[in-house]
């Protein structure tokens, strides 16, 4: 957090309504996101209880496990969910585009990718565990499951892995999406409740933000967004309903019990379903940030790559090897850096945070020498001078390199800093000639913004091959030995097949 965000929160608390933290949307929001609200049985790691799923607000599918302690019913649920998720994934593979390659032949990339929206980070944790508990299932041998179940596990695992990547939009928790764009007058702790958060953002007619948030904390009026259910609901509604299902003597009674259970769970899920779609409306109303398309392209790239490997490949390993973990960490850190820079460039409100700390400054060009040449070297070089007046706190000093936020790749050298004016010498981003390309050098009167950071290219560090993993990192990972319980990849071991999922 920063003083700027803190101030926005304080303003929200005083005025009773949320304050913007962004002027553009920093995440992709496709035409057809898949909204998925999972519920689990309290006290269990990942025993599903119900889910509301769908791409259309008017037409949610409700999946229910009539007895979460029954293994067959749980895997039945997984198969039902698989049917929905896999057909959604498939529908994202309808169109492709050609990406040029070095050999000139080009390759295909899907022009879309799945986008799954869950209410909160807990939803992702649950999907990760559901993925872990299904991807090693066997379709033959003891305890066989439907073929779609392990496939669902692999796709869920891909989604959850990808969700770790900063800036990815394939699987996102709604609370984080909203909290990234608006500040409420409550703490981040309370923002984790989707109903309370949305209460601030979009209170019902006649209510203030804090009133709506308070109302949303009452589990009877606004059931929790999962994956854990309200304990009151568990004790007073769910427990008797599950007991009735267990007691039901015949198929018909069992169906009636299931119906009652479905109705109760629908009542728990529907309010959150509405909250999800209202949130989507709010986010859609924001214009998309300029770099969002590029990051979504990364998601489509990853989607294409993973989809290509699915028919032949194995379920993802339980743990990364040391080298794979190092590689993943580097990738995530780089994505975070990139995201930070891109958000600032896309959004003046985010840039304001950097201006406040002195990592960037904005101002007006008060003098310019657009055709100045540096003649000290063998050949004269185009090095225009700009004098920028700013009221921002300045942390730059003579000799620093800064980057023009309004023109990608344009660098400048700080020549002189003096009482609110900065003299800059532009060194790139003006074309290759001795006269600048038209429009490439800011003119007197232009508003400009320069940053001390930029989306730089990083060279990947060289990592050792697997068999040379140093002893500090556990040494080379053991090769897969059939029947070995600790083997990481595939095929699943006997122990995996026996995991009872309770």
């Amino acid at each position, binding site marked *: *957090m920063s003083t*700027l965000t*803190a*101030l926005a929160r304080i303003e929200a608390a*005083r005025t009773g309504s949320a304050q913007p933290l962004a002027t553009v949307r920093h995440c992709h929001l496709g035409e057809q996101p898949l909204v998925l609200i999972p519920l689990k049985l309290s*006290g269990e*790691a990942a025993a599903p209880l119900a889910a509301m799923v769908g791409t259309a607000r008017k037409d949610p599918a409700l999946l229910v496990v009539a007895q979460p302690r029954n293994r067959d019913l749980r895997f039945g649920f997984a198969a039902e969910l698989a049917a929905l998720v896999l057909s959604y994934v498939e529908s994202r593979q309808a169109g492709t585009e050609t990406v040029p390659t070095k050999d000139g032949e080009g390759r295909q990339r899907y022009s879309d990718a799945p986008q799954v929206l869950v209410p909160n980070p807990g939803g992702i944790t649950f999907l990760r565990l559901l993925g872990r508990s299904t991807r090693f299932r066997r379709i033959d041998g003891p305890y066989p499951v439907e073929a779609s179940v392990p496939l669902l596990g692999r796709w869920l695992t891909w989604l959850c892995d990808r969700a770790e990547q900063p800036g990815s939009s394939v699987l996102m928790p709604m609370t984080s999406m909203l909290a990234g764009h608006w500040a409420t007058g409550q703490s981040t702790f309370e923002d984790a409740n989707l109903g309370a958060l949305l209460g601030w953002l979009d209170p019902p007619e006649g209510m203030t933000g804090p009133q709506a948030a308070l109302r949303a904390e009452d589990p009877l009026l606004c059931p929790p967004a999962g994956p854990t259910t309200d304990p009151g609901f568990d004790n007073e509604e769910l427990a008797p309903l599950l007991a009735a299902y267990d007691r039901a003597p015949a198929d018909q009674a069992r169906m009636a019990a299931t119906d009652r259970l479905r109705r109760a769970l629908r009542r728990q899920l529907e309010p959150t379903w509405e909250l999800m779609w209202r949130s989507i409306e709010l986010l859609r109303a924001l214009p998309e940030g300029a770099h969002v398309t590029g990051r979504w392209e990364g998601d489509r790239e990853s989607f294409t790559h993973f989809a290509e490997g699915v028919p032949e490949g194995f379920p993802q390993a339980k743990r990364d090897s040391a080298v794979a973990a190092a590689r993943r960490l580097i990738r995530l850190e780089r994505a975070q850096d990139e995201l930070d820079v891109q958000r600032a460039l896309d959004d003046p409100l985010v840039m304001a945070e950097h201006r*406040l700390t002195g990592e960037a400054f904005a101002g007006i060009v008060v003098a310019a020498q657009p055709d100045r040449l540096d003649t000290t070297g063998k050949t004269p070089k185009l090095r225009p001078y700009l004098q920028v007046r700013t009221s921002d706190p300045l942390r730059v000093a003579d000799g620093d390199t800064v980057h023009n936020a309004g023109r990608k790749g344009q660098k400048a050298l700080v020549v002189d800093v003096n009482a609110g004016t900065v003299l800059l010498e532009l060194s790139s981003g003006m074309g290759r000639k001795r006269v600048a390309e038209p429009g490439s050098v800011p003119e007197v009167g232009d508003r400009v913004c320069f940053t001390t950071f930029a989306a730089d290219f990083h060279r990947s560090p060289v990592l050792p091959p697997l068999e040379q993993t140093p002893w500090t990192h556990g040494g080379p990972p053991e090769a897969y030995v059939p029947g070995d319980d600790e083997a990481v990849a595939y095929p699943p071991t006997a122990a995996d097949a026996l995991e009872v999922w*309770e």
Partner: protein
Amino acid sequence: MTDLAARLDRLRGDAPARNHDARTIAALTTNPGCGRRGLMDAAGIDKDAVARYLGFPAPFGQSQFAIARGNAFEKQVKDDGFAELFTLLRERLGLPVPQVAIESLDEVGGNHGSELRHAQTRRALARALAGDGSTLFDHPLLRLDIAGQPAYLEPDVLAFRLGDKFYVIEIKSFAIIDGQADPEQVAAAARQSAVYVLALRRLLTQLGHPATAVSHEVILVCPENFSNQPAAAFVDVRKQLSVIERQLSRISRIDDLVAALPEEMTFELGDGLASAIRAVEARYAPDCVSSCELAFFCRDEARACGSTDLLGIAVRDDVGGVETLATALGLADGSLAPSPEQVEIAAKLRLARLLRAQALEGVA
């Protein structure tokens, strides 16, 4: 009965006293500076009943499924004379566990009184240290001086003796999946266990043994993956121990808190309850909601006085510790003259306000 104990009894009124449990210990370790909670816990007051009476019921229901799951797992680990537990200790942790003798300490001849039970725990451990007692103690009742006042801890743990070393064993029903468990739950368990380690160490010191006789490694027993099979792991709680010891030494002393209150004051349910509670200062933080029954009452109070505490410690730090929303906004729009120590943050807030306004007008 000391003076202080009598005052605390009066504060509690006729209600039965409550021992410290997992939740009060969590609150103690996450927000030790809260005098209100400290005093009420020291007096053994049922904060849940108080909160309910005041119209701010605590949001802590427990699902019967979670309870059933926890009990079933604990039973499984303890069944057949702790057979599964000992297998784990031997095979997973490689401990050379010899023949064991188990002693249950959760009652003394049908009596569940705290003092009696604590005395029994003390005797049992003394025998064990002398070399002819049991090796596994179920539900020991420990005592820890908190804020100058003895507090009984009702841990749902086991104390296990191996040679001349004691280990705290905690059975939890959250799963360890592929060698990893939910970090938040592990951290909470570690904090809790550290309190028990500390209490056990104090007891051993009283019995004339070195504190190091209680291992700083606690043994966490959890279900593994998606099964009911227990797994065990050592958790090093040295860090938590030093944090708790420091917090306990800094805590406002209960006798000072009590001395500042009117003689006749009581927290008994009744008309004067809210004002009596307001007389003791609280230190509200948003995450109180996860560990203290009174949190919603304190939140309401913080809201009424427009405190920056409402928004969390990070926000408060970002505005240089300014206490109220009104002050922060006043400094930001220049309507309030900053005090000498506020000059720096005031300048920053004014600039922040200006930059926000510029960005929102679309003139970056």
